């Protein structure tokens, strides 16, 4: 196996998305609107770091060059990252952060359920474990989107604004490229068309309950899965990788 293996890129996408998202929400710890949210957001970041490590360790194993999760997380530059653009978007206000989590979970949970049926037992095992955590995240963020959307006028407007900002970053997760196609045919990954259906159902039902309006624009950003990122990722990685870069011989 090697980095030519489509599963290498595929597991990087999953691992990088988890790590980048965890990095983003860690910024809230100690600064959330209420103590329960400090705890909640730290807990989710912790789950995502754990899942990210599993996916990246597997990616390293597939690549076969002796790189583990840390080597991959800390020693690749933005162009080698394969996370979805949604995950690297700035936090905005707390509502925007919650909306980003919701849109992500709505894709990630059904995907994990599909991956737990993968014919690659390593993928299936990670997906099964991750799905348990992700279903809690999914329920929590769905509830929060409904409560805040159907809360006060201000909370409604903030959630609508968050949805409008983030909407163009949702298409990439749901649109299959060559790697998705190959792995689907091989029985390693589920068909994204099915995931898209589940995503659409859940998102539209939730937005209705939240009294929010699904944006009409069909314009979607893409590129993250191929390593073409927004300007934000470089700063995020500069911060995350600082110690490993500044002290190359150190052990931590």
């Amino acid at each position, binding site marked *: 196996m090697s980095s030519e293996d489509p599963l290498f890129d595929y597991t990087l996408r999953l691992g990088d998305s988890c790590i980048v998202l965890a*990095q983003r929400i860690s910024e809230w710890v100690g600064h959330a609107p*209420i*103590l329960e949210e400090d*705890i909640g957001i730290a807990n989710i970041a912790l789950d995502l770091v754990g899942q990210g490590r599993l996916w990246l360790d597997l990616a390293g194993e597939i690549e076969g060059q002796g790189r583990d999760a840390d080597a991959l997380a800390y020693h690749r530059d933005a162009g080698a990252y394969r996370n979805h653009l949604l995950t690297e978007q700035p936090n905005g206000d707390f509502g925007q952060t919650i909306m980003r989590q919701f849109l992500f979970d709505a894709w990630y949970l059904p995907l994990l359920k599909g991956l737990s049926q993968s014919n690659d037992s390593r993928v299936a095992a990670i997906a099964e474990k991750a799905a348990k955590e992700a279903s809690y995240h999914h329920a929590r963020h769905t509830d929060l989107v409904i409560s805040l959307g159907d*809360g*006060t006028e201000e*909370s409604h407007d903030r959630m609508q604004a968050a949805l409008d900002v983030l909407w163009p970053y949702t298409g990439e997760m749901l649109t299959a490229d060559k790697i998705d196609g190959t792995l689907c045919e091989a029985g390693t990954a589920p068909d994204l068309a099915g995931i898209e259906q589940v995503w659409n159902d859940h998102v539209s039902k939730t937005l209705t309950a939240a009294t929010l309006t699904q944006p009409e624009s069909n314009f979607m950003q893409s590129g993250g899965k191929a390593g073409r990122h927004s300007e934000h990722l470089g700063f995020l990685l500069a*911060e995350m990788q600082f*110690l490993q870069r500044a002290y190359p011989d150190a*052990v931590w």
Partner: protein
Amino acid sequence: MYAQMVKTDTTSVKTREEMSAEERAFQDRVDADIKIEAKDWMPENYRKTLIRQISQHAHSEIVGQLPEANWLTRAPTLERKAILLAKIQDEAGHGLYLYCAAETLGVSRDELTEQLLTGKAKYSSIFNYPTLTWADVGTIGWLVDGAAIMNQVPLQRCSFGPYSRAMIRVCKEESFHQRQGYDALMKMCLKGTAAQKAMCQDAFNRWWWPSLMMFGPPDKESVHSAQSMAWKIKLNSNDELRQKFVDQTVPQAEYLGLEIPDPNLSWNEERGHYDFGEIDWSELFSVVRGDGPCNRERLAARRKAWDDGAWFREGLMAHAEKKSARKDTQKNAA
């Protein structure tokens, strides 16, 4: 400590003759190590002092998230990031149980938060120091959580039931934090590069004295201790705990190969304890007054979190009200 210099509103401890019958019965229960529960009769000053002490402790856990969270996004490995996330999450959890313990005494979490944000309530002086390098994170686990344990283990036996039970839960997690902090330093000091060792020594130099100050002013100046000790909400004197901390920590520092930043530190065979140099008490008083390196930043960060989060809390509340109103309409229609 996490609760330093807690005022008791009393000038001296009452003698049995000076006590009312109720006060005497209360003191007898305390002396017999029977836990006081929230619903039990208690002297008003006991209640007030406990609210101060427990809320100071809770506020310390909350503000204490900030210096460590400063390194969350820069943790050097994914495992260290996970450990730090879990630790900070535990600290916020401690804050939550402590606020609940305080609430049993008839004060709301919102009122306590208000007191923190207006600067009326204090939190531990230690969290007003900056975390400048990654080594500070390990050093905080080792020294700050270590000093907290020193104080909180005896508080598991304190007279107030809800506080003592909170301490039992909290202490288990604090000792875990201390081991993890020390473990991070072991890796850096014993297996790391010269630059990493220098980073650890620098962190130790900066945190050593402030850690000793966590135990509060010297006993001879600790005016509120006698009453708190009679009530068994303070079980050891400041100097006693500080000495115990020094005695425990010096060999740990030596094992790491770190030099204690105190030229007067030496083993005293006769006392069976380490002697150590004079603490700069003016620094402690100035930090407690609000003039430490990070007091203003810490409070500003907590205020910003609270103010920016107002719409979020109001949104959730409004939704909960709508939901229960809808339920009522459904019930009435049925």
